[in-house]
């Protein structure tokens, strides 16, 4: 039998963390482990801290609490740019439970929302108030502390795109997911960020593709160099959904479709 501790604040829960103690957000990851017996933890820690459910403006940006669910993201007008990624997570029941904070820790091929947050250059706010960028957080998430939420700047209109590729519609696990932030201040791309989900142990940026898009136009000719290097630096795995080989083969195809989505035909 496991022990369960419910703490009034996230800071209290953080102080109570330790070996073989696991923090639980929405439960979709932790309870799965608990149900299958012999979990790698003896205690489940949770909190009723209302701050985790907050969505609020902070200067020009937004703060989204770690306890905000996918369903809540889909319903919040100020988070409409994140709605396609939140909708990509599970079915309606899962989306009523799964939280932003949990998605940051979801192992591949899960983590569609985290992929979107990586492309958006979100910053992860830890329980002590310190922040780190998504890339650094994801690289060290196995040995990090508790997360309070993320802060992010909403993308310019139509500058953010998200695509999930799955074999089952409308709900299926990712073959891969792609999020792209595509600023075009003078008609050409500047500082584009491309993130892939299910193409590595955590969501990863396609940095070679990003570099190849610098100064490019969003047309077939402009994106061709980026597609040629789309999967470089990524590390997809074989799993029940797709082989690593297949993921590498189709990644440039789907990236191309996402980049040209809504662009005038040549």
């Amino acid at each position: 039998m496991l022990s369960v501790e419910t703490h009034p604040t996230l800071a209290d829960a953080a102080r109570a963390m330790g070996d073989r103690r696991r923090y639980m957000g929405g439960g979709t990851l932790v309870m799965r482990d608990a149900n299958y017996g012999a979990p790698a933890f003896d205690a489940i820690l949770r909190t009723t801290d209302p701050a985790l459910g907050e969505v609020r403006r902070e200067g020009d940006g937004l703060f989204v609490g770690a306890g905000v669910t996918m369903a809540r993201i889909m319903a919040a007008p100020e988070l409409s740019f994140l709605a396609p990624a939140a909708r990509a997570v599970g079915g309606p029941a899962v989306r009523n439970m799964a939280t932003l904070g949990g998605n940051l820790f979801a192992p591949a091929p899960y983590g569609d929302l985290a992929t979107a947050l990586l492309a958006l250059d979100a910053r992860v706010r830890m329980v002590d108030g310190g922040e780190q960028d998504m890339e650094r957080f994801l690289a060290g998430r196995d040995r990090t502390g508790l997360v309070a939420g993320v802060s992010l700047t909403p993308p310019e209109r139509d500058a953010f795109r998200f695509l999930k590729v799955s074999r089952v519609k409308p709900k299926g696990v990712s073959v891969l997911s792609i999020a792209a932030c595509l600023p075009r201040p003078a008609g050409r791309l500047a500082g584009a960020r491309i993130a892939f989900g299910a193409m590595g142990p955590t969501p990863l940026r396609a940095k070679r593709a990003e570099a190849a898009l610098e100064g490019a136009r969003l047309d077939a000719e402009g994106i061709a160099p980026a597609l040629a290097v789309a999967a470089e630096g990524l590390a997809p795995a074989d799993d029940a959904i797709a082989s690593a080989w297949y993921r590498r083969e189709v990644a440039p195809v789907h990236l191309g479709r996402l980049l040209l989505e809504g662009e005038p035909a040549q």
Partner: protein
Amino acid sequence: MSKTPVTFTHNGAETAVFVDGGANLLDVLRRGVGDLSPKYGCGQGTCGACTVLIDGAPHLACLVLAEAAAGRRIETTAGLQTGPEPHPLQRHFMEGFAAQCGYCTPGMLMAAKALLDASPNPSREQVIEAISGNLCRCTGYEPIVDAILAAAAEMRGRVA
């Protein structure tokens, strides 16, 4: 290790149970409360057979920590029929052959009820989306979608 008392509303009735640490709501409903209508399918959030409504919204009972259900309003298929007649969803599932082995049916019914409570006149696409987290390996889904749409039409007629 001691058990923890948890109280919640189960199909309209105040209910108190003692739960083991780490127990999920599905186990508590089936073994503690004796409501066998939500089913154990996968235990990992894939199949939807354990779908119940918590405060009106569909949740997977197998992934809900029992303690987290304290003070909440739980609805299961066992509470769908409130009078002598089956709920319209139940009857249209029967009449439309929307159940074969029946194992997914309680989860399908609760996912459908959540949809119709929020959207009395859903499109076919909305129905498909609403049951997208519920697996059926028998019917091929079309009779289920048809049954939900037929129940919705009947329920709208009653209100009108």
